[in-house]
């Protein structure tokens, strides 16, 4: 059970994020929703990469009693998460920049009022 808690957190984060994106009317809240989904996915990747009793694959930091091939963890999920975080920052910056420009044009952040594109 204790090992499943992160996965439950992942699901909660993603559902909360999707809820914010779909139902919130404020653009900033939608942006926050996307960021929350992203945190959920990142948490999922990190949780997948967790190995009980594993050691971080830093050669010089290896504990004395362990031999090298021992329990080094292949850090691919962590690498994926880092990449995903970097991409997430870029997307977040772009979305906020767009939000600023939208506010300048429309003088509102309410998506129901930002509707020049119809049909």
């Amino acid at each position: 059970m204790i090992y499943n808690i992160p996965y439950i957190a992942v699901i909660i984060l993603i559902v909360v994020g999707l809820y914010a994106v779909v139902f919130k009317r404020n653009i900033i809240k939608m942006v926050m929703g996307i960021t929350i989904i992203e945190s959920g996915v990142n948490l999922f990747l990190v949780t997948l990469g967790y190995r009980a009793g594993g050691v971080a694959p830093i050669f010089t930091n290896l504990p004395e009693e362990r031999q090298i091939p021992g329990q080094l963890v292949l850090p691919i999920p962590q690498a994926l998460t880092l990449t995903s975080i970097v991409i997430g920052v870029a997307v977040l910056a772009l979305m906020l920049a767009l939000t600023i420009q939208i506010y300048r044009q429309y003088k509102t952040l309410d998506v129901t009022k930002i509707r020049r594109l119809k049909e």
Partner: protein
Amino acid sequence: MNSIITHSPALLIAIPLFAAFITPLLSRIHRRARDGFVLIVLAATELLALLLAQDIYANGIRKYVFGATLPSLTHPGTMSIPVRIIFEIDGLSIFMVLISLTIAFVATVYSSSFFKKEDGLDRYYTLLLLVTVGMVGMELTGDLFNFFVFLEITSIASCALIAFWVDRGESLEAAFKYIVISSIGALFVLMAIGFLYGQYDALNIAALANSIQFTFIDKVALVLLLAALTMKAGIAPMHMWLPDAYGEAPPSVTIAVVAATQASLYGVLRVCFTLYGKGLRLNMAAVGWTLVGLGLLTIFIGVTMALVQRSLTRTIAFAAVGEIGYMVIGAGTALAAGAQNFATVALKGGVFHIFNDVLDIGLLFLVAGAIIYATKERDLNNLGGLAKRMKYTTVFFLIGLLAVAGMPPLNGFASKILIYESTYQLNPIISIIAILSSILLLAIFVKIFYSLFLGPELPHLRDVKEVPKGMLVAMAILATLIIIFGLFPGYVLQTIVDPAVAALSNPTNYINAILGGA
């Protein structure tokens, strides 16, 4: 020569990526120097792609390894996985790369004269080259996570390009919709990658395809991947971002985004036919039927919505939605048909239609851009009688509309007839709907043609002039390709489409190229 071909998969990414960040520096020297540089870079990349294509058609799948060159060079931990990223290029990848690079080239030719009076172009070219890098990367890579990274590069760069006219609220709105859809889509893809990695300890598409078991989690991952990629490819019911983005972006950007959309469609094909390729003959029929249903819905929505639009670019954008549906029913029929003979025909039609759609819709968007450039008008009701003032543009629009509606002897006919023929064998109703929608599309565009170019001259359009040469050249390139593809469909099918279809229908070749056997 040989070493150029060997390294060309890396160079296809590296050259435009490097050029993207040189361009702002060059524009400090002179505007012309920058435009010429971007053109030369894209032409060189295209040439490289053609060389690589020739090699692949002669010698089969090519791979390029970043990192551990030999599978035995493994990490000293318990796992025996070599740390590396592989680019794997087969007939389908190179087919898509040729499409993307051709479109990027045409877009650059067009924008060199379209944006003559605007500033901020140094960054514009940087972003255009980055979109190119993203698309080409998505199509070349053999690694699922790498695919995600390039997907994000494409969406970030194309979102910034859609918002190029920042002083128009509509562009910003469209760009915001696009970034919301594509970032959520990309996160779904990442989640699916997590599911697959958690089960099989691999990210390489070939390795995953080899060990896939069709467990429940695999199916969840498949649904996530398909949902995200069809959303990004603009397939109904998640098509609503597409007409906004296509309609509000500058036309040269639109055709780049059209090509990026096709790159997502490439993702759909790769996932269905290669990643889950083991089930090709067995349990993918349900997925096939779903795709057929979505495709029909897409065609229907696209065409009916195109009927009621008043803006020129939005009409074409909805027609573009409809056209995507044709490719999807092609691919879906191939999956649903399984081992029956017409599966290959359907796939051939669908894959060929990818190229044709980019050319036809691209040409129409460029013509729409030319009209906006010359008249500053977007509303169909305020336009008319342009044929006398803009002769060449009129001819190009005529070619584009006939091609989109699938009229012989143009290229749209060549691929649509394959789709009609094969879907008829799966279920006659599919092909009836497809044909009817095509006719409706013709009616829509004939109406638009009439209201744009024929009829009396409008007083406020008296002093409209033909557009500058660069734009005409760009349209001419697309029109020439349309005519060539239409006149010699057999040759085109044989040289570039058949290898792509063969790559899709034999996933074992893709797997064996990485995992030995060869």
